[in-house]
């Protein structure tokens, strides 16, 4: 049996991801910033110049960045966690490490990327004159909830991908669809009230709403949204963990 130090292993796996990703980029961190900035520019152009629409709270660029960053993190971490077990077959079939560590390390590895983008977001909030407020103290909690949610989803889909190899394409398509179903470039007020519950129970949508409340309106997050966000995140984490434990028994046979 494997009797190692799981935290130390996790630390090393995250470090490996980070090193491999940034060693082959001459501009390093700059690439982490470029993608959300380009997306922000394009969406701002489209929805202020091409389809001008009802005004949103605060500058549209920040409004849309509050949507892009959580969504991008979710999409990237989910799809890279999904393929993590199959792509690391040499580890999973040769070393008896706890297999949960593999998808979790991929999700946490993406957090390095995320941290840089959050810093960019907060910086732009200040640059656009929105300023710091006391409700920023909620930010660590809501981000941790999103990371927990992605860990749960990542665990479940990485295990499913072992059995059904086209799961990765399902995830890719789902991400394309989700971009429109999550309020990245529109406010919740544009959505008919009877559909609001869909957004509140979707942790990514809920996180975007909470971020806008805190950063743009300088208000504390709505309690009911926060509770639903916490509930779905913890539920996804538990479900993903249990599902992974059940499915991992036959990994060796299917890899």
């Amino acid at each position, binding site marked *: 049996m494997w*009797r190692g130090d799981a935290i*130390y292993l996790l630390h090393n796996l995250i470090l490996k991801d980070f090193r*491999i990703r940034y*060693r082959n980029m001459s501009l390093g961190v700059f690439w982490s910033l470029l993608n959300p900035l380009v997306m922000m520019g394009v969406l701002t152009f489209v929805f202020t110049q091409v389809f001008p629409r009802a005004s949103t709270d605060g500058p549209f660029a920040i409004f849309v960045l509050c949507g892009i960053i959580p969504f991008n993190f979710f999409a990237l971490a989910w799809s890279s966690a999904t393929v993590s077990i199959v792509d690391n077959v040499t580890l999973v079939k040769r070393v*008896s490490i706890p297999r949960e560590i593999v998808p979790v390390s991929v999700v946490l590895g993406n957090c390095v990327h995320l941290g840089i983008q959050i810093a960019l977001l907060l910086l732009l909030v200040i640059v656009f004159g929105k300023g710091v407020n006391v409700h920023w103290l909620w930010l660590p909690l809501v981000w941790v909830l999103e990371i927990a949610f992605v860990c749960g989803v990542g665990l479940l889909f990485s295990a499913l991908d072992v*059995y059904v190899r086209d799961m990765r394409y399902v995830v890719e398509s789902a991400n394309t669809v989700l971009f429109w179903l999550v309020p990245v470039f529109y406010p919740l007020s544009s959505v008919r009230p009877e559909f609001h519950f869909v957004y509140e129970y979707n942790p990514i949508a809920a996180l975007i709403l909470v971020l806008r409340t805190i950063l743009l309106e300088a208000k504390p997050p709505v309690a009911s949204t926060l509770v639903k966000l916490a509930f779905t995140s913890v539920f996804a984490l538990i479900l993903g963990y249990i599902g992974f434990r059940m499915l991992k028994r036959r990994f060796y046979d299917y890899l």
Partner: protein
Amino acid sequence: MAVIRFSEVSKGFVRHTGRRLLGGHLVHRLRNSAKEVFWALRDVSFEIGKGESVALIGANGAGKSTLLGLVAGLADPDKGTVSVTGRLAALLELGSGFHGDLTGRENVYLNGALLGLSRGEMKRQFDRIVDFSGVGEFIDEPLRTYSSGMIVRLAFSVAIQVEPDILIVDEVLAVGDQSFQAKCLERIAAFQRSGNTLICVSHVPSAVQDLCPRAIWLDHGRVVKDGPSANVIEDYTQVRLAAVRS
């Protein structure tokens, strides 16, 4: 005291050609076709005591790798029970956790953690690992600049420094130059003397006869013979020769 005990262990693999994709799963469900099982191990029973050194021999496809997978806890048996006590390090495909873009040092840290070293153990062992490998100043160069011999030396050095209770050596001693091989054998002998358990795997039995007094011969998933390695290997060699002649 037995550190490894197999009692009536069977392990089968479902033949699932094409069932890895969604379409394959659907076709299988719709046709309701029976599962076709390939038995890699059938009713295998044996015990390995603490401090024993055992060679596992058999042709390709005899079930050696499956058996090691069960010992290492990578898979569960379909029938029977497997019990293993103690820390295990398997030199299965040395360096499977290595990455070409990382330096030797970074790979040592990563592989040590994969094999179960804690942060403190790693700190204490690091210099010894590098010394043993003889990689020298290349330790801070990316692994892709290493020769294949250097990679194997580094991987072996990490695995042996994990100080396992059970060491599995799988066809790996045929690599590295002669002086390094001699160093490895010396290290393995020291490992045996301190009362640890060793399992050697090979399809070239003469290579393991000197290391292991006992041998288990597997064929088509069954134990054909289990006993003193000289006897088992003699019989095995005769059968192989007969098969080649006919």
